[in-house]
C-alpha cells in the first residue's frame, strides 16, 4: 500500500511538473515581451529601468493606428457573421431532426481542418479571378468569417447541448409564438454562449495573418504591420503592441471565465 502511495505521489508530481513547464514555456516569452516593452534598453534590459517610450511611440504611429482600425473593422464584421451562422447552425442541428444533420454539421466544422494558408490563397484567387475583386476588406471579412464559423459552431454546440428544447414547447403552449419563444426564453439563456462565440471569432480574426494577408493586399492590419516590423528587427512599437494585445486577450478570457464560473456558460464545465 505504501508503495502505491509513493507511486501516486510521483506520478502526480510528474504531471504537475509537465504542466508547470508548459505554462512556463507558453508564458515566459509573453512575460518577457511585456517586460521589454517597459524597458529603456531593449538589447539588454537589466537592471530594471522602466519607461513608457514604447507605448508613446505606438500611440503616435499613424500606420499602427490605421492598422488597428482596420483590424477592428475586420474582426467585428467577421465575428458578427461567424456568431450569427454558428448560432443558427447549432440551434438547427440540436433542435430538429433531419437526415441532413450529419452532413451540415460536417460542412460547418470543415474550416477547422483547412489550413489558414489555403483559405487565404483560395479566397484570394476566387475573388480575383471569378468575382473580379482586388484585395479588399469585404473578402477578408468573409474569409475570416468562414474560419470563425467553425470555432463558433463548436462552441455553440457544446453550450446548447444542455439546453432543454422542451421548454420552448412549454412556452408555445402558454401562448408564445416561435419568435417570442426565442426572445423570451432561448435568447436570455444562451446569450453568453453567443457572446463567447463572438469573442473567440473576434480574437481569431483580429490576430490572423495568413488569411487576411492574402485577401487585403495593401490594406494594413495589426498582424501584417507587426509582420513588417518583425522582419526588420523588433522595434519598440511591436513590443508595446504585443503587450497590449496580450492584455486584451487576457481581459476577454477573464470575461469568458467569469461567464463560465457563474454558470452562465458551460463548455462542458460542470461547475464547482
Amino acid at each position, binding site marked *: 500500500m505504501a508503495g502505491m502511495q509513493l507511486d501516486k505521489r510521483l506520478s502526480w508530481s510528474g504531471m504537475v511538473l509537465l504542466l508547470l513547464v508548459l505554462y512556463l514555456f507558453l508564458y515566459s*516569452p509573453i512575460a*518577457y515581451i511585456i517586460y521589454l516593452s517597459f524597458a529603456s534598453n531593449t538589447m539588454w534590459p537589466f537592471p530594471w529601468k522602466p519607461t513608457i517610450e514604447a507605448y508613446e511611440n505606438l500611440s503616435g504611429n499613424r500606420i499602427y493606428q490605421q492598422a488597428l482600425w482596420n483590424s477592428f473593422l475586420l474582426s467585428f464584421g467577421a465575428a458578427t457573421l461567424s456568431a450569427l451562422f454558428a448560432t443558427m447552425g447549432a440551434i438547427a442541428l440540436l433542435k430538429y431532426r433531419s437526415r441532413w444533420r450529419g452532413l451540415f454539421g460536417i460542412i460547418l466544422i470543415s474550416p477547422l481542418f483547412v489550413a489558414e494558408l489555403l483559405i487565404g*490563397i483560395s479566397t484570394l484567387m476566387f475573388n480575383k479571378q471569378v468575382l473580379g475583386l482586388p484585395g479588399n476588406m469585404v473578402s477578408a471579412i468573409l474569409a475570416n468569417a468562414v474560419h470563425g464559423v467553425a470555432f463558433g459552431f463548436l462552441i455553440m454546440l457544446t453550450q446548447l447541448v444542455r439546453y432543454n428544447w422542451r421548454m420552448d414547447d412549454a412556452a408555445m403552449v402558454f401562448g408564445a409564438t416561435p419568435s417570442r419563444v426565442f426572445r423570451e426564453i432561448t435568447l436570455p439563456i444562451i446569450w453568453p454562449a453567443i457572446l463567447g462565440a463572438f469573442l473567440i471569432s473576434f480574437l481569431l480574426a483580429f490576430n490572423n*495573418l495568413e488569411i487576411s494577408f*492574402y485577401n487585403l493586399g495593401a490594406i494594413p492590419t495589426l498582424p501584417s504591420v507587426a509582420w513588417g516590423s518583425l522582419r526588420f528587427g523588433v522595434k519598440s512599437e511591436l513590443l508595446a503592441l*504585443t503587450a497590449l494585445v496580450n492584455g486584451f486577450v487576457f481581459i476577454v478570457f477573464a470575461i469568458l471565465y467569469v461567464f463560465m464560473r457563474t454558470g452562465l456558460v458551460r463548455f462542458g464545465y460542470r461547475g464547482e
Partner: protein
Amino acid sequence: MSARGRFSNLFYRPGARFALLALPGVLFVVLFLLIPIIAILIFSFWRTESYELHADWNVNNYAEVLGDGSYMVFLLRSFLTALIVSVVCLVYSWPVAYFIAKLGGRYRLLLILALAAPFFTGIILRLAALQAIMGPLGIVNMFMMDLGMEPIKFIMYTKVATGIGLFYLYAPFMVVALYLSLLNFNFRLLDVAKVNGAKPWRGFLEITWPLNWAGTAIGFILVFIPCLASSVTPHFLGGANGALYGLVLGEQFAETGTWAKGSAMGVILFIASFIVILIMWRTVNLRRSGFTGAGM
C-alpha cells in the same frame, strides 16, 4: 383567450425550420470555402504569364511541382516536421490534459483557459515573443554570451527552431481537444478495470486510450494541418535551409506571382491534408467497432 396568432404553416414543418436556420451557414461555408478550393483546383491546370492567368489547360504545374526535386523535398520536410511536432504534442499533451481533467478540481476551468489563451494572440506576436527569447539577440543567448559561452545554435534559424516554434503555436489545440474528450470520460471505468486486476498502465492502454482516441485524433489533426502548411514560422525561425512547403507556396502568391503553379501547390497541400484526415477518420471508426487490437 386573446391573441389568436396567425395560422403559421411554417410551425408545422420542422423540416422547413431546420433548413431556414441551417442553410445560411452551410451555404456560406460552401460558397466561401469549398468553392474557392474548387477554383484553385481549376486554376492549377491553367498557366500564368506576366501576372495574368490564362485558361490554357495543361498539367505543367503539376509536372513541375511533383517532378522537381526541390518542391518535393519541401513537401517531405513539411510532412516530417508536422508529423514530429504532432507526435511530440500528443505525447506531451496527454499527461497535461489528463491532469487537468481528472485532478484539476475547482481550478480546471482556470487551468485550461490559461493554456488556450496564448493561442489567440496571433501568430506574429507569438513568434516575436519567441524570437525575443530564443533569437540570436534573445535573452537566452545574450545570457549565454554574458557568461562567456557560445550561443546555443540550434534554437534559432534551424529546423529544430521551427519545430519548437510550431509546438509553441499549436500545442494548446491538442491539449484543449484532449481535455474536452477527457471531460466526458468516465474515470470510474478505470476503477472497474482495477477491480478486475488491471495494473495502471494496462488500464490506460485498454480503457483510457481507446475511449479517448477520437479526441486524440482530432487534436492530432488540428496540430498537423497547420504545421503542414506553415509558412510564417519557417520564415522567421527556419533560417536559410529551413524553407518549408507552405513558405514556398506563399511565395507563389506574394512574391513571384505564379498563380497557377501556386494553385497546383495548394491543391497538393489540400490533398495531403485530406489524406491525413481520412486516415485518422478510418482509425476512429475502426476503434469504435470494437477493434482495439486487444481482441474482443
